[in-house]
């Protein structure tokens, strides 16, 4: 068939035209000639005559003149009034390019939608996770010159004994009091502690987030009030006089509706009245990232808030975070050498009375050091750094898959347009012009994808933050769109778009326009090198998806493992009530009887199956441990053991079976010999096969109690103590009835036959009657256990999401490559079918191609997964990252989906009409 485009090109040879117009003109006119030629052939004219008469249609000057006229009219006029000619014409052609690109994209809605969706998901996921990562890890706290802030704590805590109120290194009040009197290279040294305060009078407690701060806290940080004034040194005096409180901006707005007359009003904290003196600036939410605060009170209010558990002046209560600002001209090294030289004096002067003798030398030789604290402190940061880093890696992988997908789509598009560009180059269009047009298309895609991604990111990150928020951990993360990650992802997307959109221009410039025109793409077999890039991209996508799918399965299986852990007790239907009866001011000798009466009242209720007391909340992450040894083995056998003090019904309520001996009895009193019940892990560790009943266990001296002796009266089955993940710990249970120092706080464990809400209502009714002044906090054990797995649930959920996303993207990629290959090889397949190839062999031809790609991708993916597995092993429970089941299932699922996607073009190939296929150009 004659190449009518060449005819047109020749006819218009000396007519200069703009890039967009020329190709369209050639396309339209050559189409006309071709149809005319086909009609002539159909009416029986011989090909030679048909070509001649058709070519004759091009005689005459009229068309050439018309084209010139159109061109002259669209050329910009000289002497622009405002902009220089160059700028104006650039803007003109830019808008033309953009409109042309937009039209091109509109004409390929499937391509555009896929590309935009890929980009939006990739950019959205990356931005969302990075936002949280950034809010937790990177962003300085919103105070004056945060980079000057230093935190001072012990280099190591091996000499510390007593009660720990933070899972980071913190100081005691005597240490803080000594430190603040030193002259140091820091200004405005301050201390603070974060706690929860009850704002309700009595009955069910209403807790708010609180901070206790030293007088210099706000002034050192440079925080300003929006109303009234903030806590100053004059408010933090011994005894506290008239106690004051400062509200956070958020709490002022949410609890008081932003009332203008808040200053001077009184609020109740732990049943004490505090006078509100001001509201802090809106951006400031304390120094613990992710936690925020509602109310700030001076440290001197501690005795009012904590009553007899007041931590002021106690050398055994580790709770205060101490910070200060580095003085101008002082370096961190200078400050550290000052701290090092004052440490011996400070620790020697603060050794608490009755400190365990074995710990005193380590305490005396403890050392202080300063650490940069520009981004505050955070438990969330510690807990989520690993998972977030890993999730960020997964999000980046998804982004890479999305980019590979985009590259593939654009390559397919590019190949289709190579001929178009050759023609335009042949017509004299400048290469710059073509490149600019392609750039416009790439830029439009990247901009569209980025815009959609930006809409998606805040939704996703808000959802993630709300997912992290549990009843016991109020998470307040200030998640804002982060320009750095946005720029990064947009840059990545733009680069991909531009690079791969430019491919046809790069290819076109390599080819001789003339020869490109002659070869009509009607080769029998698509050349190998044309496919190589595309195949490589598809295989890469497969490999990355394999990694993500395996990760998804690993985390899901790990979560399932956690849910299936044998707790050793039955958590269903268990309600916890924390009861604070301190306002009743019962003398010590009446407290046990009072608590006992409460338990009996509860047990008498029809809906309540059983009730008991416990000091330790099961699976709370915390605990009480001391060194113990079996007397018959001697002190050399001393090992760490975990304790709980419980009521006699504890084991029945928790359904922990007794293995031998007895449980606690009413006869176990303060006046009878101290008894203990141990678990099987304790027996294994200390006694092996020896008979445990009757053995004497010694508990080492602690800062609060002298050495004690207990006789073992029973052994119970192992149960989890601190967390689901731990190995069974050696445990020792003491009897509540033998507590020589009973407190006014008690934790009641209730097993109820009622639903969670009804059970709380019922218990609250009973307890409010029995102890009208008490403050009670309720929690549901199964819910708490579920919440303790929030990190694992998040990992499983997000990795599954990423796995699905990756699979979908990779499948689209594979489908695209195979479909494209089919269109390029349509003649070949047509010939094969015409020559008698069966449908089966055509199917095999395409599927073989797919199998090769999938196999290569999956193999590389497995290798990568094995290699990267080490990084996630800490985040998995009850399995290794090389879990064969996860790897096998992951690969099988991915391969099955990929092959299903490949079957669609393969079946299409078998249904080809050979004649139509051969005719097609």
């Amino acid at each position: 068939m004659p190449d009518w485009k060449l005819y047109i090109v020749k006819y218009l040879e000396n007519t200069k035209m703009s890039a967009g117009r020329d190709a369209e003109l050639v396309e339209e006119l050559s189409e006309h000639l071709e149809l005319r030629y086909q009609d002539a052939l159909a009416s029986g004219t011989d090909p030679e005559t048909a070509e001649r008469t058709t070519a004759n249609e091009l005689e005459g000057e009229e068309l050439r003149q018309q084209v010139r006229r159109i061109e002259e009219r669209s050329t910009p006029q000289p002497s622009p009034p405002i902009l220089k000619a160059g700028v104006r014409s650039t803007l003109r052609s830019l808008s033309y390019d953009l409109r042309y690109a937009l039209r091109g994209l509109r004409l390929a809605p499937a391509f555009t939608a896929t590309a935009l969706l890929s980009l939006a998901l990739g950019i959205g996921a990356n931005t969302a996770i990075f936002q949280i990562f950034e809010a937790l890890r990177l962003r300085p706290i919103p105070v004056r010159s945060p980079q000057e802030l230093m935190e001072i704590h012990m280099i190591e805590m091996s000499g510390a004994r007593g009660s720990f109120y933070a899972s980071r290194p913190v100081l005691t009040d005597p240490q803080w009091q000594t430190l603040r009197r030193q002259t140091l290279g820091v200004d405005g040294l301050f201390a603070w502690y974060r706690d929860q305060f009850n704002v309700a009078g009595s009955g069910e407690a209403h807790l708010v987030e609180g901070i206790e701060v030293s007088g210099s806290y706000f002034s050192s940080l440079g925080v300003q009030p929006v109303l009234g004034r903030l806590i100053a040194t004059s408010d933090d005096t011994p005894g506290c006089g008239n106690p004051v409180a400062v509200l956070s901006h958020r709490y002022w707005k949410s609890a008081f509706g932003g009332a203008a007359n808040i200053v001077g009003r009184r609020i109740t904290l732990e049943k004490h009245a505090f006078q509100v003196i001001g509201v802090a600036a809106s951006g400031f939410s304390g120094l613990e990232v992710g936690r925020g605060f509602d109310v700030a009170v001076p440290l001197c209010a501690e005795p009012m808030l904590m009553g007899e558990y007041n931590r002021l002046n106690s050398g055994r209560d580790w709770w205060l975070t101490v910070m200060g600002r580095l003085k101008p001209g002082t370096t961190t090294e200078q400050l550290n050498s000052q701290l090092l030289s004052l440490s011996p004096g400070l620790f020697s002067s603060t050794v608490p009375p009755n400190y365990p003798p074995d710990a005193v030398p380590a305490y005396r030789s403890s050392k202080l050091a300063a650490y940069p604290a520009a981004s505050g402190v955070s438990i969330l940061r510690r807990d989520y750094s690993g998972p977030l880093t890993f999730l960020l890696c997964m999000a980046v992988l998804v982004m890479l898959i999305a980019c590979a997908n985009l590259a593939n789509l654009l390559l397919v598009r590019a190949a289709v347009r190579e001929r178009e560009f050759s023609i335009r180059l042949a017509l004299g269009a400048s290469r710059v012009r073509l490149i600019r047009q392609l750039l416009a298309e790439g830029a439009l895609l990247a901009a569209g994808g980025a815009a959609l991604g930006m809409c998606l990111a805040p939704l996703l990150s808000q959802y993630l933050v709300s997912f992290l928020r549990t009843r016991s951990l109020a998470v307040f993360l200030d998640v804002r769109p982060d320009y750095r990650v946005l720029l990064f992802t947009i840059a990545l997307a733009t680069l991909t778009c531009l690079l791969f959109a430019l491919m046809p221009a790069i290819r076109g410039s390599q080819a001789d326009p003339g020869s490109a025109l002659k070869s009509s793409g009607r080769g029998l077999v698509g050349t190998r090198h044309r496919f190589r890039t595309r195949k490589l991209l598809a295989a890469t996508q497969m490999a990355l998806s394999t990694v993500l799918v395996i990760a998804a399965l690993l985390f899901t299986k790990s979560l399932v493992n956690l849910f299936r852990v044998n707790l050793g007790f039955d958590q269903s239907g268990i309600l916890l009530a924390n009861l604070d009866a301190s306002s009743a001011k019962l003398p010590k000798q009446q407290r046990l009887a009072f608590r006992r009466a409460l338990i009996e009242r509860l047990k008498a209720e029809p809906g309540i199956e059983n009730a008991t007391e416990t000091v330790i909340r099961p699976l709370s992450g915390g605990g009480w441990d001391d060194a113990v040894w079996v007397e018959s083995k001697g002190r050399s056998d001393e090992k760490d053991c975990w304790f709980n003090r419980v009521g006699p019904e504890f084991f029945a309520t928790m359904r922990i079976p007794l293995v031998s001996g007895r449980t606690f009895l009413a006869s176990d009193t303060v006046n009878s010999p101290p008894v203990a019940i141990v678990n099987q892990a304790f027996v294994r560790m200390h006694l092996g096969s020896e008979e445990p009943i009757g053995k004497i266990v010694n508990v080492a001296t602690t800062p609060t109690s002298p050495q004690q002796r207990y006789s073992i009266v029973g052994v119970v089955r192992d149960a989890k103590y601190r967390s689901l993940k731990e190995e069974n710990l050696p445990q020792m249970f003491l009897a509540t009835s033998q507590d020589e120092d009973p407190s006014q706080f008690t934790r009641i464990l209730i097993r109820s036959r009622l639903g969670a809400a009804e059970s709380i209502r019922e218990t609250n009714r009973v307890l409010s009657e029995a102890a009208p002044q008490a403050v009670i906090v309720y929690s549901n054990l199964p819910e708490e256990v579920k919440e303790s797995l929030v990190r694992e649930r998040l990992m499983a959920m997000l990795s599954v999401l990423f796995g699905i996303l990756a699979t979908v993207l990779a499948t689209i990629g594979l489908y695209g490559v195979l479909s494209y290959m089919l269109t390029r090889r349509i003649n070949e397949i047509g010939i094969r079918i015409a020559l008698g190839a069966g449908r089966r062999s055509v199917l095999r031809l395409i599927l073989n191609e797919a199998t090769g790609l999938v196999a290569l991708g999956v193999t590389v993916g497995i290798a990568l997964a094995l290699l990267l597995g080490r990084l996630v092993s800490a985040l998995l429970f009850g399995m290794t990252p090389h879990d064969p089941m996860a790897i096998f299932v992951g690969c099988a699922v991915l391969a099955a989906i990929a092959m299903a996607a490949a079957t669609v073009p393969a079946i299409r190939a078998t249904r080809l009409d050979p004649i139509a296929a051969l005719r097609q150009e």
Partner: protein
Amino acid sequence: MSNAEFKKGSAEMLVLSVLEVRDRHGYDICKRIEQLSAGELAFNVATFYPLLYKLEERGLIQGRWLEKAGERRRRFYKITAQGRRALLQHRLAFDRFVAAVAQVLGGENA
């Protein structure tokens, strides 16, 4: 209306009237005119497209690229509202012209 104008005008009228019923691509317009006139009226590429482009320039018709499944893309032309008004004017003028001619011819023969 001068003779040359009339000639040009009638070609325009033909294109517009063919597009009045439905949108067509360039070759389809030519073909339709040929068919309806039983081959008496025919255009060639070099004269037809300049006409088409002028009509488009004047806003009487509008061309756009359309892609249909299984076909290559083609530039389809559709008549605009302005085009329809122009066609009506052409028709009225043409009817007057034909009536005038018929009257002249009939008058001489009567």
